[in-house]
């Protein structure tokens, strides 16, 4: 069953008097529980595609269905609800809340969902253990390394049991060893939680972790390369 269905997606950005096409008619289907990588050179449209799937950016034309919802016709409140309940994000620059400690950062989305504090803490405790940061629960993000921060971001993305987790170059700011461990963790989580993972990268080393690879170039999806 497809969790994501994209048809004829176009995204243009105005740049002064000119229009820059970022996506020029993308068609894509992603199956539930997939662990997929979007690859391509810088400026190819990877991030834009992830942003549109994640309801962070909006399509100029075309159809985008996430979990059966046509997101191109939703208002801000509905879009926010989808982001909260169906999608988890892992950013390149970690983007944690600096004034909250590790455990508070992880439980943050659950508190936004107005889940009881005890229940949220229990779920956060489980995930912090899974990402191996139990002893750092009371630390603030500034007290953690890049790899540790990204682990927190993964735990936060997983905490709401989303249908999809989108990760935009999750290893870009990490050294190769830490990056590999993060991808291992993501894959493990995909297996444990059965969550669909889509991550973008232009690092060829990352590709070995993916079960499916989608190549994008000049705003169009190329033929899917064979897995190594």
């Amino acid at each position, binding site marked *: 069953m497809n969790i994501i269905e994209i048809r004829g997606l176009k995204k243009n950005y105005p740049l002064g008097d000119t229009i820059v096409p970022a996506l020029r008619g993308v068609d894509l289907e992603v199956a539930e529980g997939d662990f997929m990588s979007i690859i391509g050179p810088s400026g190819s449209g990877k*991030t834009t595609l992830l*942003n549109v799937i*994640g309801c*962070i*950016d909006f399509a100029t034309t075309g159809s985008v269905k996430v979990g059966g919802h046509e997101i191109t016709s939703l208002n*801000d*409140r509905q879009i*926010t*609800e989808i*982001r*909260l*309940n169906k999608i*988890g*994000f892992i*950013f*390149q*620059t970690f*983007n*944690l*809340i*600096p*004034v*909250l400690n590790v455990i*508070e950062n992880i439980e*943050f*989305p659950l*508190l*936004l*969902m107005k889940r009881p*504090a005890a229940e949220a803490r229990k779920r956060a405790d489980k995930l912090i253990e899974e990402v191996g940061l139990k002893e750092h629960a009371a630390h603030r993000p500034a007290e953690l390394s890049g790899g540790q921060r990204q682990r927190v971001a993964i735990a*936060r*993305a997983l905490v*709401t049991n989303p249908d999809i987790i989108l990760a*935009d170059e999750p290893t870009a700011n990490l050294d190769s060893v830490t990056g590999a461990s993060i991808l291992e963790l993501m894959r493990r989580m995909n297996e444990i939680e059965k969550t669909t993972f889509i991550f973008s990268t232009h690092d060829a080393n990352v590709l070995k972790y993916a079960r499916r690879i989608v190549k994008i170039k000049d705003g169009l999806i190329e033929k899917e390369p064979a897995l190594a």
Partner: protein
Amino acid sequence: MKLIFTIAWRNILRHKGKSLVIGVILFTGAFLMTVGNGVISGMAVGIEKNIVNGFMGDLVLISEAQKSDNILLNMMGSSIEPVTTYKQIKEILAAQPYVKRFLPVGKNLAMVLDESTSAPGYAYLLGVDFAEYRKMFPDSFTVIEGSYPAGGQRTLLIPTFARDEFYDFYNIWFLPEGGRVVKENLKKEALANLDTLIISTNVVMMGMTSGINTTTDIRFPVKGIIRYGALNQIFGHFCLVDIESYRECLGYFTAADMAAQVPKEEKKLLGLEGGDLDSLFGEGMIVSDVKKAPKIKVVALNEPKLAEDGVYNAVFIKLNDGEDYGRSLKKLNKALAGTGVRAVTWNKASGPMGGMALIIKSALFIFVMLLFCVAVIIIVNTLTMSALERSSEIGMMRAVGAHKTFIAGMFLGETAVLSAVFGGAGILAGIVAVRIIPLLQITTKNDMLQLLYGGNFFNPLLSLSDVGLTALQLLFVTVVAAMYPMRVAVHITPLDAISRD
């Protein structure tokens, strides 16, 4: 909510410098407002207490012909219209259950005459029945030299303030008859000229009223020198004089004049109406049969009459404790219909003095609101910068599912926490200051300060409504200051966060 306040509080601690700047402004505004409100409330209560209990009561009756309600310290000493119906008024007042006591008075300006100076000085005269005045305002002043006049005595009481003024103007030091110079009571300049001090025990005054050209200069023997218990610098302009001398001085009908008046019906009998004196000797007046002649009442010119038969300018009224001014005023004006007078409240009758508290309160309110406006601008600026600096954080929050209301609440929460902590501290510090100030027993002889103090002692008071007003202002500042930053913050999108990265 807990999450919002947790984030807000930690952000405040994270940006200590900014928070401190905003906090100090909020603290200062709240402190000034609280203390200012305390000072003004103390002033209002003090002025009310001193005027009501010591000078003019709760309500004042004045002539309907009187243009201005203000009869205390009116512009250029313009004259107060006479009230000629006191006997009638007295009966009505006595029948009102809410009226505790009342006192008719004459009040106008008089020239103080002296041969040695060409330019005359002035004094306000308050014509009263001394015995009744004492009953109405038992503690309003103390006699520091001489003695209090006996009932019916024709004399004058000069306040220390007026005596000092007379000395400045005429170089004469007034003493009560039979009195001697009391060095401690001498003005500094008079003490310096003690050897050559000119002393007088009587004052010549001439009444000043518009429309009456028959004022008389009266030589008043000074019976005593008085000092008002409070607001001596204000009330000290008023010399107390017996009502009959006052009337003579002002050219009003005295009670004795009234006794000499031929009643209207008797004028008719005499055929005097119309001023046709010849009719007195007309044939109609010649009767052949004495038994048929109309009876004519012989009016004794020196028949003793009550002082209340003469003219007054106002009636001071004290109400029973706890009586509502508005209701009493309405009832009284209804009861007094047709008597040619109207009742006004003490604060209207005392003119700018009565409204002083409100004027200063308004001025302080405007000042503090200006301060708060500056605070709002600084807070808006700081929080907007903060919102822009935190674009990544806010955008990320939006990306993981935070609604716009959450972001708005976070900013409002930050401002609210700052207001509550620093503004609350300002209010508390203000309350403490207002409690401590009376213990310092600060006194003044300065006119303006006496007004500000509402008496001789600086005694600020705080009511719950004063504290409530400051809290409301703080709330207003909080909401207004958070509006724009909130607007900026809620318009930050997840995409902004990513683009910034």
